[in-house]
């Protein structure tokens, strides 16, 4: 349990370094990346491409193992259905992403800057998580 927590700490640490180096923590850059229909900044395409590329290749190698190094099993999502709730959630998330230039990772990565916009965003994001447990619960 403790070892998992330590491993997790370092993963979070490196994740932020990656976000910071790549430019994902700059809202202006993210908005530029989403401005496909205007003045498109393509650099963040390379962030997604290299992150997905690394994950894709390493995933093939890792899942040859029976179990993870520190846990009893791999917890890999098995859902394949596409429901209205997920797509509607994705669309809502996209609106918030486009307004702020921030998704959950960069919010955490820049929380320490104390910028008022990030603090407000974090507070309302947590409230949104709460709401998602109440609104539009999937039918069992």
């Amino acid at each position, binding site marked *: 349990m403790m070892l998992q927590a330590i491993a997790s700490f370092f993963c979070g640490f490196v994740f932020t370094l990656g976000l910071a180096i790549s430019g994902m923590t700059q809202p202006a850059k993210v908005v530029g990346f989403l401005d496909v229909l205007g003045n498109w900044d393509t650099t963040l395409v390379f962030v997604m491409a290299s992150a997905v590329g690394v994950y894709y290749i*390493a995933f093939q190698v890792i899942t040859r193992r029976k179990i993870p190094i520190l846990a009893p099993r791999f917890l890999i999502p098995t859902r394949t259905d596409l429901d209205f709730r997920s797509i509607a959630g994705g669309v809502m998330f996209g609106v918030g992403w486009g307004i702020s230039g921030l998704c959950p990772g960069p919010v955490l990565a820049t929380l320490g800057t104390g910028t008022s916009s990030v603090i407000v965003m974090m507070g309302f994001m947590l409230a949104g998580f709460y709401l998602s447990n109440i609104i539009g619960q999937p039918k069992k």
Partner: protein
Amino acid sequence: MEALLSKTALIYPIVGGILIGLASICLMLFNGRIAGISGILKGTLRFEKGNYLWRVTFVLGMVLAGILVLLVFPGYAVIEINRSLWAYAAAGLLVGLGTGMANGCTSGHGVCGVGRLSNRSVAITMSFTISGIITVWVINSVFGGMI
């Protein structure tokens, strides 16, 4: 820091992306978990025995690394865009509610899900990317880039 923000320096997006990919795959290799930031963070709101501490330390690692980067590169401070605090409040609510409903965000669906070639994650990633593109277009062309 100037170079970090340069539009032409592709080395930064690529190196940064590789680090994001490595951090994500290491969480799978060591803990057997998907590195989805929204899911990890949402999980810290409710205590669950045996499935809690790793979430808190992941969040802590992310925040502390951000503080470290800020100390080393003071220019890391967020350069604000033309948005009011009301806009950030609305955005936060939409991001929290939306990722909660979709069970993931740019990391869980966009990196890990697409990286596992999950059709579901590909579709959700397309939904938030297209919606983000339309939102930015509306803000820029209807509201003059300010909201």
